[in-house]
């Protein structure tokens, strides 16, 4: 299963589901990363983490550890 963590800069992906539980999962979903939404990988921070994505028309940053919970295709 491919996750958002493995995505390359410049890719546009469709979210197929979120793994994990509790506060982190809820937060990721509250911010608009839900099933079926498309995300664009904008860039990676200078030190390699976190990543910046565009979702639902705005910019969001999340750590790779959290991005691993987002399954994509």
């Amino acid at each position, binding site marked *: 299963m491919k996750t958002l963590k493995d995505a390359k800069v410049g890719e546009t992906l469709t979210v197929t*589901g*979120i793994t994990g*539980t*509790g*506060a*982190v*999962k*809820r*937060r*990721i*979903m*509250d*911010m*608009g990363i*839900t*099933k079926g*939404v498309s995300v664009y990988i904008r*860039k*990676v*921070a*200078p*030190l*390699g*983490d*976190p990543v*910046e994505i565009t979702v*639902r*028309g*705005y*910019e*969001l*940053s*999340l*750590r790779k550890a*959290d991005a691993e919970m987002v399954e994509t295709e």
Partner: protein
Amino acid sequence: MSVTIALAGNPNSGKTTLFNALTGSNQFVGNWPGVTVEKKEGRLKFRKDVRIADLPGIYSLSPYTLEEVVARNYLINEKPDAILNIVDGSNLERNLYLTTQLAELGIPVVVAVNMMDIVEKTGDKIDIGVLSQRLGCKVVKISALKGTGIKEAADEAIKAAEKGSFTPVHSFSGEVEHAIAHIEDLLKDKVKKEQERWFAIKVFEGDKKVMEALSLDPSAEKEIKKIVSEAETEFDDDCESIITNERYVYIASVLRGAYKKADRGSLTVSDKIDKIVTNRILALPIFAVIMFIVYYISVTTVGTIATDWANDGVFGDGWYLLGIGRAAYEEAVEEYDAAQDRTEAFIAAAEEAGIDTEELVETLQSEEPDSGIIDEFLLQAADAGVEAETDSEGDVLVVDSDAFAQAVDAAEPENGDFGIWIPGVPVIVGAFLEKINCAEWLSGLILDGIIGGVGAVLGFVPQMLILFMFLAFLEACGYMARVAFIMDRIFRKFGLSGKSFIPMLIGTGCGVPGIMASRTIESDRDRKMTIMTTTFIPCGAKLPIIALISGALFGGAWWVAPSAYFVGVVAIIISGIILKKTALFAGDPAPFVMELPAYHMPTLGNVLRSMWERGWSFIKKAGTIILLATILVWFLSGYGFGDNGFGAVSMDQSLLAAIGNCIAFIFRPLGFGDWKAAVACVTGLIAKENVVGTFGVLFRPELAEVAEDGMEIWTNLSANFARTGGNAAIAGYAYLVFNLLCAPCFAAIGAIKREMNSPKWTLFAIGYQCVFAYFAGLVIFQIASAVVGNVSIPGLIASFLIIIFALYLLFRPAVTEAKEKRVNSAA
């Protein structure tokens, strides 16, 4: 009728700007009960009977963050008459996510679509009529920044509040609605009719906080479990995700036809800025430059000028209006000092030549020197051919009797002669007290106690305001979020936020604004951790202590000062890792899922307002504790049982000296168990540089003042540390480390209290710092002493126990949430 309107919206939606525009200056800033979240309330500018409550900026009403819980508790329990929901028009989809949740509370909602000017500029089309109809509430277009539509929005909110009833129109898919209706049925007797839907959805989501509050009977709970698990099987998802998905699906249906995004084509200005500013290669250099500018202006240059002006000018001798005349005065002082050197050198030379100078020195020190004596001396000196040499920065000057005569005539420069001199508060008040023949103890209390204390509070404010202006700008323009983005990787390892960088950087100048700068960190846990560790970094006032120890005990070795910073950084890293694993900071780490808002130019008014709010809250919340503590230490160090009973005494007879004697034994394992060192630690709490001055007074009371690095007392200090610690250098270094890491000055303690907003947390922070400092000092002293051959078995055992304990704390697994619960329930 008085109406309360709650202002709700996402962070970065312009909520603060709207709040300021609605209320003007009718604001009260406080805290939500029991938490560090700031609470702002105000009265509507054009309808004074309408109260506006500004809720924290939130994305959702989940039970997981402090802000969200505060907001929803307020909405459920206090039931404002209406909610004015501000949404960012350039980011409708995510902003409406909160709207769908607000609409379920049974409180009338009015939606204000903000940033309409930007939306129209980019060519996006929002059909307010359709949006309003689909959302089931009034929708108003506004621009908080430009001030358009604001009155209409407020009027609509008041109208909605007066109308009262409100039913949400939105609906989820059939299966979910079915489940919710079923749960609503079960809750009927428990909750109010208009809040039924909210509670039903929360119960469906399995929201623990709501479930606890409802305390349903077991049969109903079982029934609900069944309904939820059925839905979960049907959707093949968990209950929380089902609702979140449904909301976004619903929003998509609302926006279809109501919102048309223009074809962007090229990048927006914000995109272009971001491409450069967080570019993989340029991001760090740009970050370094911005931080340098902030540091250079708010700490090195303007900030120091402001602090010096406040401390040495307004609360010192006085100051020149606009600084005019200052340079001339300083030059004159320099000349005068050089003349003094010359006379001294000449007199010394004359003495060597066998001339009696006693009478001369006496007359020179008197108010009006006797010219007869001077002339006679000059004649004698000329006869003997006395000549002296002075050396000022390499220029050797020969002083003969003519030069001496000139130098003797030189008058001490007066401040008033060089420009418009404004005397400092203590000078003015002192003159007044003298005039009314005020009792000495009272004028001492007023001048040194109270005015000194007020000066300690206000002295930092000008510099703080400069820093706050930068912070407000960086926050408002959107760069602060990028700071977290860039620095996150380094800081999160120690349980800190990327935004902790700024407090620590500012902390190298002064810990007080450094602590206040932690306000920009959203996560409660990261913020508390930052507050606790910021003052480990040596601030400007600790530099004299470093200079003193380095000069007195290490011959001014180059490595002492850098090692102090190294000790500070190591203390932060160790503390971060240790604290992160304790029950106090346990639980799920706050997810770093952060919006990077579009860049935009903030307005001057908002920046200034934010700057002032923070400065004022420091004065108000930190002022009392600083003032009282300063007066107390002033009293303890100046009063005691002297030869004539209780009264004003010199410091070595003071109550503080007595206290120092009592507590000195505590510091014996650290190598400085001596009352003088203990007393200097205590006076260091007023301001860290006082440590040097206190040693000066205690070792050489005949000197009026010692140099900043205390060079006059280096030998005394060295002898003292050699006596108490065996090896002066080791004891001195332990003393340095202890003073660098222990409780900061009262001003910083006040700032900690203000930011923690809890006496318990403040005490914990100070206690932690002192214990950490004590252990660090002990380990350094004992181990280093053992290495040079002064082995103390109990000392070594204690050191190893501390090290083992620290290693255990560093490498043990973190306390999990289950354990945390046990701790909580035990407490």
